[in-house]
């Protein structure tokens, strides 16, 4: 291929807002994305990048199908959607934590088949499999906190950043599962097809991430 234009699928919304400064520090021109209006696809005029803005689960689909070379997406979505692509870099943003939470009267050791509400049925199943517990999982699309409050579920598995929403809804944390952060993921074949271009971007971003981490430690 004479021109290597990397297609980067970026999760729109909070991930986009957290990652744009990193990309800019790494020398990527994000001006078009910052002034995107309602557009979802952007070709950097002077750089070999094309950006696609998509929802997190769709970023994994673009990557799996080879419609994007690089994806920027949360590790929660990568695990839940069984991503098989290469996870090259932890961008160190979007940090939060999977937790098991419920109301104050919840007894994790109660001898019963618990009902668990979650947006993440695969992660939930793996967690309870590790504990050797068989649970009933109810898939909930949003406001998971409602499940134990309304009696729909005994507890929830969800992600939390500060725990504020949980506290405001009188829920408490009973266990911590895996941490979550935003990752840079690469399509397996794209890494072979565009090896030097991809690693050049990854290395520039890795340097930015490391500098940010060092600044955080100094503060």
């Amino acid at each position, binding site marked *: 291929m004479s021109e290597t234009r990397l297609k980067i699928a970026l999760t729109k919304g909070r991930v986009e807002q957290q990652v744009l400064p990193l990309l800019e520090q790494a020398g990527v021109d994000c001006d078009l994305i910052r002034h995107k209006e309602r557009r979802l696809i952007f070709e950097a005029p002077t750089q070999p990048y094309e950006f696609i803005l998509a929802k997190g689960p769709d970023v994994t*689909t673009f990557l*799996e199908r080879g419609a994007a070379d690089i994806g920027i997406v949360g590790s929660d979505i990568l695990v839940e959607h069984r991503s098989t692509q*290469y996870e090259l870099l932890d961008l160190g943003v979007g940090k939060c934590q999977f937790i098991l939470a419920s109301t104050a009267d919840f007894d994790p050791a109660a001898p019963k088949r618990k009902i668990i509400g979650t947006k993440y049925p695969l992660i939930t199943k793996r967690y309870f499999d590790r504990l050797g517990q068989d649970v009933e999982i109810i898939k909930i699309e949003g406001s998971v906190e409602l499940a134990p409050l309304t009696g729909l579920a005994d507890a929830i598995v969800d992600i939390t950043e500060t725990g504020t929403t949980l506290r405001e809804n009188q829920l408490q944390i009973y266990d911590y599962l895996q941490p979550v952060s935003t990752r840079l993921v690469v399509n397996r*074949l794209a890494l072979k097809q565009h*090896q030097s271009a991809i690693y050049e971007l990854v290395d520039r971003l890795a340097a930015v991430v490391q500098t940010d981490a060092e600044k955080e430690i100094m503060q």
Partner: protein
Amino acid sequence: MLSNLLPLGTRDEFGRRAATKQQLISVIQAHFKQRGLAPIATPLLENQAVFTPYQMGNYQYYRLLDPEGQTLVLRPDLTLPIARFLSATKVPLPQKFGYVGDIFRVSRRLSGSYNQITQAGIELIGYASLKAELECLTIANQLSSELIDDAVEIELGDAQFAQQVVASLTPDQAQQTAIKQALFNKKVPQYDALIAAYQDEPLFDFLKNWPRLFGQPTAIFKQLAAAPLPVSVQPAIERLKAVVTWMAQTMPNQAVSIDLSSQAPQKYYTGLTFRGYSQAGAGYLFSGGRYDQLLANFQAKSEPAVGMGLDVDLLTELALTQAPATPRQLIYFEPRQWSQAEKLLAKSTQGQLSLAPDLQAARAEAAALGAQLIDLTEGDENE
């Protein structure tokens, strides 16, 4: 439910796509025949036990029950049924087989993937020498240039390299598996955390760079030479060097790279592995290698074997994007002009006879087919 709906993940093939695919298959089959490969066809249905060694990854089987309640599957792989056939029939070895057939793997729902995939392949069974790998690579090289215009890069690897390196690091098998999985899936943050335990080891610098151990052979061999690798990996490195040298002499225009950071295509691979891809394709066009323990899944005695599978559907996609569509020709004629029409048809590569009763209907037929109408009745004095 409507009766004309297709099951999820399937498709009909017709028109240009079907014609292109059939053309590719006929080229592949002619190539196999010319090289003396015996054709073989195994059933679509097999007992699930045949595929015990097969790693399904994120895919699932199509399963069904036979009248006795035995679980059958639509085959997800074509190599293991051939191993089953050889084990059951005791066909004398060595044998060279060539095949084209469909495999079935249920992918994630609504992901846009097709579950029925056409694969062509070869199996060279009973051959222990490196010449078997070299014949596979020759076929890969020749078919690549016959089938598609794009340059194809052949990537060489070794199925045992990673295991031999991690075994030299730790006797803990769970740790070995964790490092290999993080390496193969290039889950770099997880991999970096796992290898941190070995930062005082002489091999640590190699471990740090291992996920990037793929690329041009010269650079890879240089990195390997600089690393204090265990003696157990040296035969694999020497074999790779021998193959790279042979390819440079035998097929000087073939682009070659090495990847020692990826998993073999299946866990039954035991030696040299190879895959091919082009810059335009969305997947590997072919993959294969040596699997000397294949028959050991079905019988006590194992046999050396090398094989390769080609993704006919992916080759078809590439061929369709590369070759411009040639307009079809529709030949309209009167019955008394049949011989003249036949001669024209024999010369045309995209022609067909119009069976329309009159010129007006022939014009409508041509419009419906998007074909150029050749009217043999034009200027006919008998019209």
